């Protein structure tokens, strides 16, 4: 409170109420401003917090080490999905289960092999909980180790294991002991294969079984054939793998060759032999990652490559092609375990343990443990894994790696996905099958965003700016008073309505009248220019009949007539150039009318080799342009109208024409405002969602083709967010898309603001 001296008359004092309101409003405004900053910042922080986990590696921790198979020689071991009751099998007639919590003593279940056969080789297919065994008498068979959860009265879960013997098939010759076995079951066909020692030589044998399906249900399993594959091999067999596709056998040989033998045809056929590491190098290991399409190979020094089954360009059959190189291991891989959910696999050499992801070529986690690893297994949920050391102890680890398929490379780099002919930027987040690789490249979406924005601005900027210039500088005030609010109403049209119009009304029209659209777009401005020039050549007394600013009264009918003429000329143009040809290059004739078929839709793909879709960029460009035009128009018109009238008057008094006044005086001063208008229009186009969702096919393609669709970042979020489980990789990736969008607009706006500032400095008034 200022001291009120008695000699200051009361009328000079400010009332307390006014001061209080002033102080209150200052505080309220400050609070509001701060609130906005906090809100925006909060959104940003939230998005970043959703995105960050995508870029973290795997979290692995050793939870316990238990005595497991001390003094035993297990051929295989496995674990249940809760990772509580691991088992091992030594090749005899029992399977041993060890309680990982140590609460119960080890427990064995009997196993009766047919004919009391002696098991000499075994492998474990964790996905099916299937143990594949090879016997001394040349048979390959399976047994299942299954676990059931039972809930007691107290609701406590107890796991009850069971062992079920499966089918056994004679594969090789009797008497030769089996060194290694492989088994692949696709449901319809099964392949069992074995490397067998016979007379001091190693042979490879396989049997193929098919299940005939009929209307009556699945039929009986019949044996298609038993094959001796040894003659097809390039050398002495080392290791053998059978993919779950149940149609082939992969054998590595001592010469460093992988033989890919296909059994799906009438007879075994060697599809491919390849040396994954080149001449003179040996193969250390061969394994299949989840999906059984990709091979992880290491050589004897630990170099690691991935080969995937694909149809190469120009080829007809699927063969293995080197698609990836991963960081080297310390030596040839001595163990391998794969996830049953994604493309993660656990491998290593000696005491080195490395968790890797095949799609992204990343090492997710790596450690040198204090023991030599004899074997590894990942549980079915991919939430833990276990390592077996040479003393028979089982080391259990918890595994937390929810987003192995994420990473910079996956989002922004080219990735060679399984089955693709080359590395590419692909977006395909979901699919029907489990063993699908999510393809999460944001590049097609960024591209789509830029493409949609480009075509929208391509359409909108000339129209909006010219309209703004005309309205601000040439149109009479009475007309302007009507035009301006109308445009502002247009700006408030919901984009769903525009998208709906685009998809159901505009797209079909444009589809059938592309040449008309082009002719009209080219012809109407041309007519305007020609008429304008002609008008200016008219003697002054004729021109004087229309007051300046009312020329549009004469121009609009001319433009309408021109638009109608050019629109009707479209089919004529179409009948000149759009000749549809058949495969041999002859024009196609319509059997009904006997005339040559002239159709832009069919002609465009033939002429350019690029597709034509009904919901394409042209439709989006026009409709999104419609959404952007009022935004650009209103702001640009304001900027132009705000140029002081004294300056336009000065220019006119100096004998400048309206156009010269515009170009030399008005535009430079309004340039910064016009620039803002463009940037705000751009921002609207970049973020526009509904029009794109509705008016395109939402295909994440990467081209600039006007007759193809696109998928933008914002449309992607709108279409996929309902499908994305909370905190899944897809969910977080959509947030990453939002962040990219955020960054994109932020960058654009900052750059624009800097530029605008310079323009304003250059042309500032007084």
């Amino acid at each position, binding site marked *: 409170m200022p001291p009120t001296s008695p000699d200051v008359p009361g009328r000079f004092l400010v009332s307390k109420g006014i001061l209080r309101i002033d102080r209150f409003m200052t505080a309220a405004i400050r609070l509001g401003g701060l609130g906005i900053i906090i809100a925006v910042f909060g959104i940003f922080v939230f998005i970043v917090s959703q995105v960050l986990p995508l870029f973290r590696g795997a979290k692995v921790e050793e939870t316990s080490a238990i005595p497991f198979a001390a003094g035993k020689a297990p051929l295989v071991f496995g674990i249940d999905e809760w990772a509580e009751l691991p088992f091992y099998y030594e090749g005899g007639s029992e399977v041993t289960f060890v309680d990982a919590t140590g609460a119960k003593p080890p427990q064995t279940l009997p196993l009766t092999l047919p004919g009391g056969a002696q098991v000499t080789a075994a492998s474990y297919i964790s996905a099916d909980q299937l143990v594949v065994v090879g016997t001394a008498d040349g048979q390959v068979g399976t047994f299942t180790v299954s676990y059931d959860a039972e809930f007691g009265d107290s609701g406590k879960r107890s796991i009850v294991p069971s062992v079920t013997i499966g089918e056994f098939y004679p594969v090789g010759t009797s008497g030769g002991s089996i060194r290694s076995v492989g088994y692949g079951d696709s449901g319809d066909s099964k392949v069992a294969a074995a490397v067998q020692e016979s007379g001091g030589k190693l042979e490879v044998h396989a049997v193929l079984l098919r299940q005939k399906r009929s209307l009556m249900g699945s039929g009986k399993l019949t044996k298609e054939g038993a094959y001796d594959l040894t003659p097809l091999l390039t050398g002495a067999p080392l290791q053998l793998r059978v993919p779950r596709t149940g149609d082939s056998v992969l054998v590595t040989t001592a010469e460093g060759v992988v033989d890919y033998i296909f059994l799906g045809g009438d007879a075994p056929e060697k599809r491919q032999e390849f040396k994954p590491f080149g001449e003179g190098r040996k193969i250390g290991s061969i394994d299949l990652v989840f999906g059984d399409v990709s091979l992880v190979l290491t050589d004897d020094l630990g170099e690691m490559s991935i080969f995937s089954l694909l149809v190469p360009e120009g080829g007809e059959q699927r063969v293995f092609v080197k698609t990836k190189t991963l960081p080297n291991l310390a030596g040839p891989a001595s163990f391998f375990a794969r996830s049953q959910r994604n493309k993660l696999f656990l491998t290593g050499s000696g005491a080195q343990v490395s968790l890797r992801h095949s799609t992204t070529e990343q090492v997710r986690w790596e450690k040198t443990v204090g023991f030599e690893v004899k074997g590894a297994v990942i549980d079915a949920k991919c939430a833990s894994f276990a390592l077996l050391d040479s003393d028979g102890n089982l080391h259990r680890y918890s595994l937390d790696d929810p987003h192995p398929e994420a990473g910079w490379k996956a989002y922004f780099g080219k990735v060679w996905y399984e089955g693709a002919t080359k590395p590419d930027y692909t977006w395909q987040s979901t699919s029907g099958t489990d063993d699908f690789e999510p393809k999460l490249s944001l590049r097609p979406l960024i591209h789509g965003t830029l493409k949609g924005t480009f075509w929208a601005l391509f359409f909108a900027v000339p129209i909006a700016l010219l309209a703004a210039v005309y309205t601000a500088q040439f149109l009479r005030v009475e007309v302007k008073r009507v035009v301006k609010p109308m445009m502002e109403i247009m700006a408030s049209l919901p984009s769903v309505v525009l998208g709906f119009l685009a998809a159901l009304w505009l797209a079909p029209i444009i589809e059938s009248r592309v040449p008309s659209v082009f002719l009209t777009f080219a012809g109407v401005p041309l007519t305007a220019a020609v008429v304008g020039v002609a008008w200016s050549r008219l003697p002054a007394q004729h021109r*004087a009949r229309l007051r300046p600013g009312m020329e549009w009264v004469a121009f609009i009918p001319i433009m309408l007539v021109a638009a109608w003429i050019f629109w009707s000329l479209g089919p004529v143009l179409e009948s000149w150039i759009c000749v549809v040809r058949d495969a041999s290059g002859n024009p196609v004739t319509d059997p009904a009318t006997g005339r040559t078929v002239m159709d832009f839709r069919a002609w465009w793909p033939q002429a350019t080799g690029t597709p034509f879709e009904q919901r394409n960029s042209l439709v989006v460009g026009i409709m999104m342009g419609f959404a952007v035009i009022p935004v650009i128009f209103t702001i640009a018109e304001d900027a132009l109208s705000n140029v002081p009238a004294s*300056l336009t*008057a000065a*220019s006119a008094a*100096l*004998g*400048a024409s309206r156009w010269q006044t515009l170009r*030399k005086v008005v535009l430079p001063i309004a340039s910064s405002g016009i620039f803002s208008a463009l940037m705000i229009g751009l921002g609207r186009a970049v973020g526009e969602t509904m029009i794109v969702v509705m008016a395109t096919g939402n295909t994440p393609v990467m081209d600039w083709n006007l007759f193809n669709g696109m998928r933008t970042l914002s449309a992607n979020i709108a279409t996929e967010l309902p499908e994305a489980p909370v905190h899944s990789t897809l969910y977080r990736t959509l947030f990453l898309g939002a962040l990219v969008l955020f960054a994109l607009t932020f960058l654009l706006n900052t750059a624009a603001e800097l530029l605008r500032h310079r323009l304003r400095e250059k*042309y500032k*008034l007084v």
Partner: protein
Amino acid sequence: MPALNPAYINVQDFNFWYGPKHAIKSVSMAIPECQVTAFIGPSGCGKSTLLRNLNRMNDLVDGVRHSGDITLNGTSLYDPSVEVISLRKRVGMVFQKSNPFAKSIYENVIFSLRVAGQNKKSELDEVVERSLAGAALWDEVKDRLHESAYGLSGGQMQRLCIARAIANRPQILLMDEPCAALDPIATLKIEDLIQDLKKEFTIVIVTHNMHQATRCADRTAFFYLGELVEYDTTGVIFNTPAQDRTEAYIRGLFS
């Protein structure tokens, strides 16, 4: 020199309306060539309106209307064959409030030449020097011709606008209270300038300043409420006005 035209600009029974507002009421007057004619009168009496009709600047205003005629050297300004742009090239104008463009001093001066398509550097340089010298500004700005015009003082800006108006040598120069915002020294400079310019140009000047009118004008017209009250040589108007209203105004009884 040919005989000078005493009715170079001839205003004949001219009326002018801004919408419903009748701003000029039946004004008739003849403005002689190569003389300085001053319009005086209280604010809002229509001086600027009449002035702006002499180069049809009022065309830019919406909803205006006129009757009667104005001829320039015998031709009606409103003849349909008259090209407004070329009319404005003949009739230059200096506004009450200086309005230089957001350009350099140099570009401001040659604006009328640029829009006429003149781009020869040597000629432009010459015009800049002649015009700025003519507007008594050359010495002050010759070292910073390429700096922004907005760096000048108010008086300098107004002289720049005069230089700009005379750069393309119009035949008539209209000046609407050119000294209203200027200090006495700048005002004197501009008055000297007017005396110089009158050798070449026909000048019509609106002023509120009685002394200015007596110092510069050959003839003076007194307007009141849109009407032309009295129009005669400056000496007559200021010494022996025929109308009481004129005398009252000149003596400062109303303004």
